[in-house]
């Protein structure tokens, strides 16, 4: 077995015992990136020299007695987390040259833990999208079928792990952006409880929904990375104070006795591909055989989750993206062009002509934002504008409360909820181009957890006849990550879907 096929937990063990150096391990991933990523496009930027320097630093630290669990392990980072002095683009022309003067809390935790930051992964622009096709930078392909999308918005993060180009990677999840690409790429993804992981330095899409989380090959690997990035942060007002058990990794390998799993009938009904339904039902039976009980629950408002989400997320996004106006940072349109345009408009006798400043704002934003970002800004601005606030935004906040209450009631009867991540496996690239609404409906099973702020885990539970991965989703009550991870380990101990490898044609 090659180094890159080992689990991150196993790699960490070998690093700790001295069998393996971070330089060896990191080099193996750099080699995979060099040979595979031209086919996949998971990474936006990798700087091998800088990466190896980090690996050497980690090896030196180890020699001087540092035993941090993540020390020397390579981690890929979604290009949405700020890193001091390094490009952080959100896959947008707007931030193509943006170098933050500070580290995101997650990035500084990774650095402090001695992780090797392998490179920046591709994503949908500002995390808006579910296919990574809305990146302004490049296309990312699904390692299982390069004619298909890896999902998104953390498509690069998922593809990097699936193609053995990173053992661990950091994604963000606003409506499913970790779990959905994890499901479509056959890897594990965890969206933590809202507030578990600091959002400081995470470039905001929808602040009340965004969470940072891990993607990995196995559940313990995901737990390893999760533990390293979780924790209270005084710089994030929405950060929770609750801590994780110190022995998280060890504790999750103990199987749960009497696990009660709830399922909603409508999440396995019409609109869900038969192959997906079959795989999820097989997983449910597998759990039953491991001693879990299955209970049908009602989530009466879950059918409104997408509508609720597509009001709240664009409203917050329209506000969060107002700062990109070409004044203090980011793309600025040519002021000379603006003056020329305005002069021409004045000469033609047009009325209501913008001032230079307003036109500079408009041109800067129009030039630098992609179509999906513009669409969501427009939608959110509309929903918050005078006369519509109550009907859309306020109404959505109330339905959001009802969705949360549905979950609360369900978790009185069961420990966790089980169901599919998406209704179908990975889509062909380009298939959603002309129908934004159809694209939004893909988020049907994932947005609920974001609206409610609860943790959810996505893990591979089978393959379609075409060989495309199918994802299983487990959702838990707030702060139930340890139980979610235990349930995940239980499944991966019994099933071996996560051990299958995508074959990526390697460049000669």
């Amino acid at each position, binding site marked *: 077995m090659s180094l890159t096929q080992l689990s991150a937990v196993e790699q960490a063990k070998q690093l700790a015992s001295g069998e393996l150096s971070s330089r060896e391990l990191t080099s193996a991933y750099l080699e995979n990136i060099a040979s595979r990523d031209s086919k996949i496009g998971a990474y936006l930027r990798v700087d091998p020299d800088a990466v190896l320097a980090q690996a050497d630093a980690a090896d030196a630290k180890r020699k001087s007695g540092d035993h941090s669990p993540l020390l020397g392990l390579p981690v890929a980072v979604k290009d949405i987390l700020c890193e001091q002095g390094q490009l952080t683009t959100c896959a947008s022309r707007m931030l193509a040259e943006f170098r*933050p003067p500070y580290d995101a809390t997650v990035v500084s935790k990774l650095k402090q833990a001695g992780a090797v930051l392998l490179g920046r992964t591709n994503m949908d622009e500002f995390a808006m999208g579910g296919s990574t096709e809305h990146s302004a930078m490049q296309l990312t392909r699904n390692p299982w079928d390069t004619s298909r999308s890896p999902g998104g918005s953390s498509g690069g993060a998922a593809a990097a792990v699936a193609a053995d180009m990173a053992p661990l990677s950091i994604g963000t999840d606003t409506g499913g952006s970790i779990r959905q690409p994890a499901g479509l790429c056959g890897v594990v993804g965890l969206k933590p409880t809202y507030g578990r992981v600091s959002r400081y330095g995470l*470039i*905001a899409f929808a602040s009340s929904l965004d969470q940072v989380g891990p993607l990995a090959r196995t559940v313990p690997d995901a737990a390893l990375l999760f533990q390293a990035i979780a924790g209270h942060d005084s710089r994030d007002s*929405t950060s929770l104070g609750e801590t994780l058990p110190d022995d998280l990794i060890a504790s999750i390998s103990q199987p749960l006795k009497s696990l009660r799993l709830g399922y909603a009938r409508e999440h396995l009904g019409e609109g869900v591909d038969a192959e997906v339904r079959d795989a999820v039902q097989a997983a449910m039976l597998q759990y039953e055989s491991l001693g879990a009980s299955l209970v049908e629950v009602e989530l009466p408002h879950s059918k409104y989750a997408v509508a609720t989400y597509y009001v709240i997320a664009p409203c917050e996004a329209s506000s969060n993206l107002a700062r990109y106006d070409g004044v203090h940072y980011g793309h600025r349109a040519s002021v000379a062009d603006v003056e020329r345009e305005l002069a021409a408009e004045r000469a033609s006798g047009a009325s209501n002509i913008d001032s230079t400043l307003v036109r500079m704002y408009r041109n800067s934003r129009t030039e630098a934002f992609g179509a999906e970002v513009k669409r969501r800004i427009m939608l959110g601005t509309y929903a918050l504008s005078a006369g519509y606030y109550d009907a859309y935004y306020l109404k959505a906040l109330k339905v959001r409360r009802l969705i949360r209450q549905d979950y609360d009631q369900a978790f009185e009867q069961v420990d966790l909820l089980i169901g599919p991540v998406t209704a179908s496996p990975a889509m062909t690239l380009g298939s959603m181009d002309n129908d934004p609404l159809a694209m939004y409906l893909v988020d049907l099973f994932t947005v609920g957890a974001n609206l409610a702020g609860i943790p959810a885990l996505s893990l591979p539970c089978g393959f379609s006849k075409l060989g495309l991965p199918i994802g299983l989703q487990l959702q838990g009550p707030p702060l139930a990550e340890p139980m979610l991870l235990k349930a995940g380990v239980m499944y991966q101990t019994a099933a071996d879907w996560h051990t299958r490898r995508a074959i990526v044609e390697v460049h000669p």
Partner: protein
Amino acid sequence: MSEPYAIVIGLETHVQLATVSKLFCHCSTKFGAEPNTQTCPVCIGLPGSLPVMNREALRLSLRTALALNCQIPEFTKWDRKQYYYPDLPKGYQISQFDLPMSNDGWVAIDDPQERFAPKKVGIIRAHLEEDAGKSVHDEATGRGDSVIDLNRTGTPLLEIVSAPDMRSAAEVRAYLDELKLLLTYLAVSDCNMQEGSLRVDANVNLHIDVRGEVVATPIVEIKNLNSFRAVERAIEYEAERQFREWQETHQRLGDVPKQTRGWDDAAGRTKAQRSKEESSDYRYFPDPDLVPVVFTAEEIEQARKGLGELPQQLRERLQAEMRLSQYDASVLVNQGREVLDFFVAAAEASGDAKAVANFVTQDIQRHLNQTGQSLSGLPLTPMSLAELIKKLAAGEIPSPRARDVLMAMIEHGESANAAMERLGIEAVDESELENLCRTLLAANPQIVADLEAGKIKAIGALIGQARKQNPNADPNRIRDLCIAIVAGGNSV
């Protein structure tokens, strides 16, 4: 009122709270730093940055709101007010919309000159928000660029919105003076208008009596008011302007959108400001990056107890306990906490509040005005002033020399005794004084005759002569002695 209309005025006052760090980050709020040297990812609004609220700003807001007699709701939250402006780096201002941290209070105003009757001006709300940065038009480049300085961005402001309860420039002035005094007593702001710590916008319209029907004219918001005097002048100007405009257009409230006009202090008039290209639609919504604040009844009670004595209570106490006139009490309290504390200490030490009040409001105040010093900068303690007053009462200092003694005490930082010694003031022996009077009377038979004829004024010339011979002679005593000698023949 001679005009056929009433002026209706409400004020929006932005007060910079006296915190050392900004509302949502740890940058300094110090005034006068080099441009863009007091900023960080949070107050620049860099992608990924997040706000965390300043505890002290919240405490000062609560303190002020309670002093303004406001209701404090149990639950308050912060909202984003969205508009594009280069000095607003996030594209929104964090402010409060529908659930401000306080509402429905009042400020009592009155006028010692009685130009208006005492009244309460309603406070609609006071809310905590962040300041924007500063745009400076750069003449030097010649290209008409503006330069943005974000040092001020994120400074905590309390916006205090009054009800449209004021009816004259005098009432507005009284409201502002009282508000500033209150804020100063509370120590919540330095209220420095030059540094922008206190900013006032006025909403003004007229209620015109048209054959028995009251017609309201459109409301005009006046900005760029850089002093209280400017506020008064702008309101007076604007009332006349609006009345002329009414006579021309007959436009009523609601006929046209609210107009914003800027005050030009040099020209002494308001000028229409260019309206925005779209009607303002701020799209307020709760800031998801900040969590709400809940005040418990105990917290509110504790804050209320910590307010200390406020100006209105102090004025009342000075009248009731120190037996000062309403006028003296107001003058003392209105000079601020420092002067008031000095007064109270000196009054208690000397037992003569009236005498202390006179010294403080007259001689000492005159000296401060002339030198531009503050009371704390003087080497005069309440104890030494009390000593002076006691000596005066005991007749050890002739009253006309009291001021000289005080000034010597201030100038040389010395006690009343030392000052008296420096000025050669000593108590004059009674028999010595009587001898002096007899000698002078003997030398001035015409004055004696005048006095016998009841022309008491004639004694003035004698007093002058007596003080030439002995500067320590007390004029009142000379006067009394001379009258007694003349009236009683030789019996004195």
